């Protein structure tokens, strides 16, 4: 006898093993298809797991950078509004100063102009004290509630920056330097101008006008700087977002099931399973007993 002896239990064992392994294959593919993932546990593919963990972590970081960009934009747009309003306030002050130089003005009229300048100064100080989540936008890192003292008009802040990370490699200043916004000088100029007009000291008013013009160009420069940073944020947002999307697609490539491939595989292994079931049923039902009377 050349072949192996076949016995009831040996053929049952062999058949059961065959059935079991093809059923296992079918089940694994079914699991993959129903979860949509081919890497569900580290042991499915340790290397893919590690790179997937890293990619997911980077994706989360990018999501945070997008949040940071949103915050920075909030702070900068507040600064932008404040600077715009400052520039129009300065223009109003310039008009007042120009009109005060009319020699035909009565003392009362000059007093009225002076009073209005005092009001403009107050609202300027308010504008300088614009706050984004409790923190003055023009105050630097000083632990003060206001960037400019509401009564004395003294600048209380410093020029140290508030910084945010807007991408893996880039940080950006999100507030506006007080000196760059003329926070230290403007209230003084207006206070002085109000006095000079009240005293009808026109030579000093002319000096005040020059200083105001300087302050206006400083504020406009700051406005331009804020606009430039806003557009930098825009660019950063686009690149971080596209990087994030890239991570998302790479995570999916790494973890997700290749559907057509998996479905084909499932089809094939189901056919194999059915075939082995059929064969087992055919082989195991015949025996010599069927042919004996």
């Amino acid at each position, binding site marked *: 006898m050349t072949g*192996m*002896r*076949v*016995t*009831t*239990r*040996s053929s049952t*064992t*062999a058949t059961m*093993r065959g059935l079991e392994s093809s059923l296992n294959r079918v089940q694994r593919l079914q699991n993959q298809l129903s979860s949509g993932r081919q*890497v569900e*546990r*580290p*042991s*499915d*593919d*340790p*290397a*893919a*797991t*590690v790179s*997937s*963990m*890293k990619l*997911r*972590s980077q994706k*989360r*970081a990018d*999501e*945070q*950078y997008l*949040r*940071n960009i949103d*915050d*920075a934009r909030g*702070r900068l747009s507040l600064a932008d509004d404040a600077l715009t309003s400052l520039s129009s306030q300065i223009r109003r002050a310039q008009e007042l100063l120009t009109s005060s130089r009319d020699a035909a003005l009565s003392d009362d009229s000059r007093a009225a102009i002076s009073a209005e300048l005092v009001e403009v100064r107050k609202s300027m100080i308010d504008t300088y004290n614009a706050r984004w*989540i*409790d*923190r003055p936008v023009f105050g*630097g*890192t*000083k*632990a003060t509630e206001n960037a400019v003292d509401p009564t004395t008009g003294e600048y209380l802040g*410093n020029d*140290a*920056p*508030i*910084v*945010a*990370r807007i991408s*893996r490699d880039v*940080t950006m200043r*999100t507030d506006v330097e007080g000196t760059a916004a003329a926070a230290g000088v403007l209230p003084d100029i207006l206070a002085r101008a109000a006095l000079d007009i009240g005293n009808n000291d026109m030579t000093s008013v002319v000096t005040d006008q020059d200083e105001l013009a300087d302050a206006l160009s400083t504020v406009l420069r700051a406005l331009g700087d804020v606009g430039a940073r806003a557009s930098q944020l825009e660019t950063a947002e686009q690149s971080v977002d596209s990087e994030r999307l890239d991570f998302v697609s790479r995570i999916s490539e*790494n*973890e997700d099931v290749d559907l057509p491939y998996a479905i084909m595989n499932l089809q094939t292994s189901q056919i194999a399973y059915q075939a082995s079931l059929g064969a087992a049923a055919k082989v195991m039902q015949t*025996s*010599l*007993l069927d042919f*004996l009377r």
Partner: protein
Amino acid sequence: MSGFSTMNTAISGLLASQRALDVVGQNVVNANTPGYSRQSVRVSSVGAAPSSTLHTGNAQAVVGGVQIDTVERIRDTFLENTRVAAGASMEAVKAQTSALKGAEQLLSEPGDGGLQSVIDDFFNAWHDVAQKPTDEGAGAVVIQRARTVASQLAFVSNGIEERWETSLSELRATVSELNQAATDLAKVNQRIREAHVVDRPVNELLDQRDMLVRKLGELAGGKPSVQSEDGMVSVTVNGLALVSGVRAEQFTLTGGTTLATATSTPPTVTFGSSQVSVASGKAAGLLAALRTDLPGVSQQLDGLAVALRDVVNAVHITGFTTDSVPGGEFFDGTGASNLSVIPTLTSQLAVTQTAGEIDGNNALAIADLSIDANAELVLGPGSTSPSGLWRNLAANVGTQVQGLERGLEVQSTVLSTADIAVESDAGVNLDEEMASLLLFQRSYQAAARVISTVDSVLETLINLGR
């Protein structure tokens, strides 16, 4: 030749056929009994007494019938021993795999539910604080997420510990099962010897014996010795006699009973005062998980917790709170199971780098620790960031489980091949038995026909005398 001797010859044929039919019946009914070894009747022809030749002078008609020598039990010892070893290896890999797979499940990676995402969320929350240093809400989120990191670490750590304890109680059960099986084998050995002495059939006892030997192999990689003259089998575990003849030894389980003591006093199977190095079987798999695998995972996890604590503390301590108070430590604890968060209020977070100012730069520095290179810079040369340690842990466990699962596949093929080899040798083939049934039925009929022929010959002879 005498008619009466022919009658006797035919009767011996009837008896032999009947006995053979008995054995076929036994084989058929046990075709599906696990561990049953098929039996076959061995017969031999019997020569006539030499005296008959002397007196009759007829040397050509010498017949004496058939006799049953023995009922043979067919089971190849070599194949059976291969099966025992295959079963032992299979059980070892199976036990180790199941313990480690439990640990793997606890990691919940890759995904958004694992420790990686919790750590990322924690560091990212610092970015919000850097932007809004005085915001109560942002600070509260940092503290909450830090607590989540701590509780997630504790969850995984406790899970590993539970897994370890389960494996230990499994090992305890395995050892007591082993002792029971050893006692049983010794008893069966004794019964085999007794039966042997009085020449009773022992085939079914030998089947029982072989099943017990298999069990000892599966439990602790016991190796059977060559069976002795009287049919007894002894079993050794790594050279130590567990069962020798009718005597069975008892093994005990010693060593630490908690994961914390697993490294200093590892769980050990002992006999008397000496250690039994179990190399195969379920006990070996469990020991590997208990002594190396699970403690290894737990140590890596503790290392991660310490690295996270150190890296965050190192930066937190250099900063100041918004009230100019120097920042103290942020995390407290010595490992994954007991990490805790010290600050309870937003005002206790060291968010700023310059005392007296509110710059948010320290919060930004902590947030930037999520970048591996930054964390490694703080931890010192040759160090690995907490996230990196976590990824290493996942990779280690994943690779190990993957290797074990491949081993399991290989072992199960080896085992079923060995099983099929044993069964095809010792198992019952019903077709074969049916054929034997016909054969012995026919030989019974033929022997009966011989009797009736002799009868009619004798009748003729007797009628001659009338």
